[in-house]
């Protein structure tokens, strides 16, 4: 009897929401939105990189550098015989981005000058610095009578491969990729917890404001109504995430078979006993351990239950959505804090700061998931954070159900935080 009531509530919450236009639209547009968030910065970065190839005039008083500099990047550098004063004028009126002056005695002074209208970005300066230095270094070697073949040997670049040591042996390390992936997973959990938690809160407020709650409560207990709503919306969230994952997999499969036609395959680095990355993509995607996905699902659900129970408590206390803002702050703060710490933690996921913050139950869903994706988290830390999160979850549902039971029947003046504490004591 008891379980069938909560089941009725779960199915009603689930079906009415899944059938709604809002759900269908957000499910279909979600990945496009997510893709845009991930792709647009890339495109912007790519565009701005090309943007550093501004038009730069080269005035070479030494006579050695000009051709070499121009040849290094013909789209950026061009030869100029105009007097410096005139070039300055052109920079001022904007017809020229910058000009580079190589002094006659560059070898003895060891410096050249770039004239810009101010700024220009670090990318521009670095680019010129490395181009000019390289040529100057080569010239000095030649001047010192070093053989050309020796110079080539010296100039040859060394590529750094990061190799990860595991029990199973060495494997290529994808530190950077895993860091970004951890960031994305943490951020996704944040968005999911926030949006679905708010959905629970709005649902509770709707039932209270429209006076449905008393009818429900005469049929089922407050606990059944609250948990039914939380579970029902959790199911909606799971369906949405699942649809997204399937859509992303389908798109990447399609894109994976399509992209290599346009972009050259990357050089495949051969190291022994290295798992083969997905090679059809233009960039390497290393295998994602199943444990990361398990952690993602666990912490998404645990975090959702933790926060949505608190959101439900706040929703039960207020009479309309506008009144919720103030009471919501204690919930939204611990949601936002991990996002603020995320860059620092992803920069060094094994630091004491990262370990401590990721063990705090209200932060664990975001930070522990991100760390698990980014680095090898010791098993004791995972077990500890799971235990702490579950304990906090149990406590938060206990507190929330007490506030909820009283709150749904309270109309009238806008409650303060201290009223909620009073209600916890009042509810037996």
């Amino acid at each position: 009897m008891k379980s069938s009531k909560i089941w009725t509530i779960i199915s009603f919450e689930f079906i009415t929401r899944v059938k709604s236009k809002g759900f269908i639209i957000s499910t279909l547009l979600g990945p496009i939105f997510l893709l845009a968030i991930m792709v647009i910065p890339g495109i912007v970065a790519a565009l701005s990189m090309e943007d550093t190839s501004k038009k730069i005039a080269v005035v070479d008083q030494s006579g050695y550098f000009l051709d070499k500099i121009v040849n290094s990047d013909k789209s950026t550098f061009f030869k100029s015989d105009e007097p410096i004063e005139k070039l300055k004028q052109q920079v001022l009126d904007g017809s020229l981005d910058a000009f580079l002056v190589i002094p006659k005695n560059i070898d003895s002074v060891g410096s050249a000058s770039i004239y810009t209208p101010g700024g220009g970005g670090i990318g521009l300066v670095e680019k010129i610095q490395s181009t000019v230095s390289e040529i100057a270094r080569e010239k000095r070697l030649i001047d010192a009578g070093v053989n050309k073949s020796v110079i080539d040997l010296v100039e040859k670049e060394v590529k750094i491969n990061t190799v990860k040591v595991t029990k199973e042996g060495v494997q290529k390390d994808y530190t950077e990729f895993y860091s970004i992936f951890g960031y994305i997973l943490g951020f996704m959990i944040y968005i999911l917890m926030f949006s679905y938690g708010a959905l629970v809160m709005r649902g509770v407020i709707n039932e209270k404001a429209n006076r449905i709650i008393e009818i429900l409560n005469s049929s089922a207990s407050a606990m059944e109504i609250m948990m039914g709503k939380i579970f029902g919306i959790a199911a909606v969230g799971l369906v949405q995430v699942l649809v997204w994952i399937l859509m992303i997999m389908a798109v990447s499969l399609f894109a994976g078979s399509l992209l290599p036609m346009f972009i050259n395959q990357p050089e495949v680095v051969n190291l022994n006993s290295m798992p083969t990355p997905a090679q059809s993509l233009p960039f390497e995607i290393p295998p994602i351990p199943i444990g990361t996905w398990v952690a993602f699902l666990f912490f998404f659900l645990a975090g959702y239950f933790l926060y949505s129970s608190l959101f439900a408590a706040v929703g039960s206390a207020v009479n309309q959505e506008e009144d919720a803002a103030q009471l919501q702050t204690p919930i939204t703060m611990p949601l936002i804090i991990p996002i603020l710490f995320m860059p620092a933690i992803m920069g060094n996921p094994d630091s004491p700061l990262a370990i401590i913050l990721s063990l705090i139950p209200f932060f664990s869903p975001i930070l522990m998931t991100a760390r698990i994706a980014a680095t090898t988290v010791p098993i004791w830390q995972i077990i500890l954070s799971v235990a702490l999160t579950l304990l906090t979850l149990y406590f938060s549902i206990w507190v929330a159900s007490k506030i909820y039971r009283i709150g749904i029947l309270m109309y009238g003046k806008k409650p303060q935080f201290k009223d909620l504490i009073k209600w916890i004591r009042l509810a037996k």
Partner: protein
Amino acid sequence: MEILKISNLIKKFGNYYAVDNLSMQVNEGVIFGLLGPNGAGKTTTIRLITNILFPDSGEILIMGEKINPGLKNKIGYLPEERGLYKKNKVIEQLEYFGRLKGLSSKEANNRARFWLEKVGASGWETKKIEELSKGMAQKVQFVSTVLHNPKLLILDEPFSGFDPINTELMKNIILEMKSQGTTIILSTHQMYQVEQLCDELLMINQGKIVLSGNLRDIKKQYGTNHLIIEFEGDGNFIHQIDNQKIIDKTSNRIELKIDSYEEAQLILKNAVINNKITKFDIQEPPLNEIFIDVVSKSIEAQNEK
């Protein structure tokens, strides 16, 4: 046999006693009036009976069973403040409320359609609540309360929002349910409806009983002390009546309290001198007056303490 038996019920909110040592019983198959001024503790009492609130002490027995969540399926409750999901279709939410009362979806669907037709609302099944007028929504609300055939039906101001025609319709439905054995607790401020419908009543104020019993007995106890005279003439006889006894007076009608039949006869004797009497009627006091009398006395008693 009593369907509801409450003994020594206490419910406190902080230091305030919303229900203060209340004992009562409701017999099966009656319409029971639960009356009292605003803030008397009616809603709290109903919420205790429907297991929405939990008492601090005392006992509630429904059909001889101590109150428990399982009993919720046998109770129908129409709260004073109504509400439905605005965005959902009529049939969807009726099915939902029915299922919450333990019906299967199919049963709930069939009963919902049956009841919608009965209240004159067939054809509304696929409408959303926001598309309905207030009165229409009230009917849907009523259906949601009765579609699981409750043994005990609690109605809080069931006629508010209805026009006279629909009020009549709902009254007839309530009487029909009574004849089929449903026990109904009616809470309302509309005293003439209590007089029309209720068999027994209980009046509370500040969480305590101030009056209870069979409606007929109560009225008899208050005596047939109400005199109405309608007349054509100078109306001079009115000046000989103690002003405090007069309840209502117009140019050709007077309503007053009397202490005895002899007093009525004396007034009639005076009246016939210069007036043509068109109506002379000694009545039981209306419940409205008993209500005001009892409540103000209980407030006086409270103040004296």
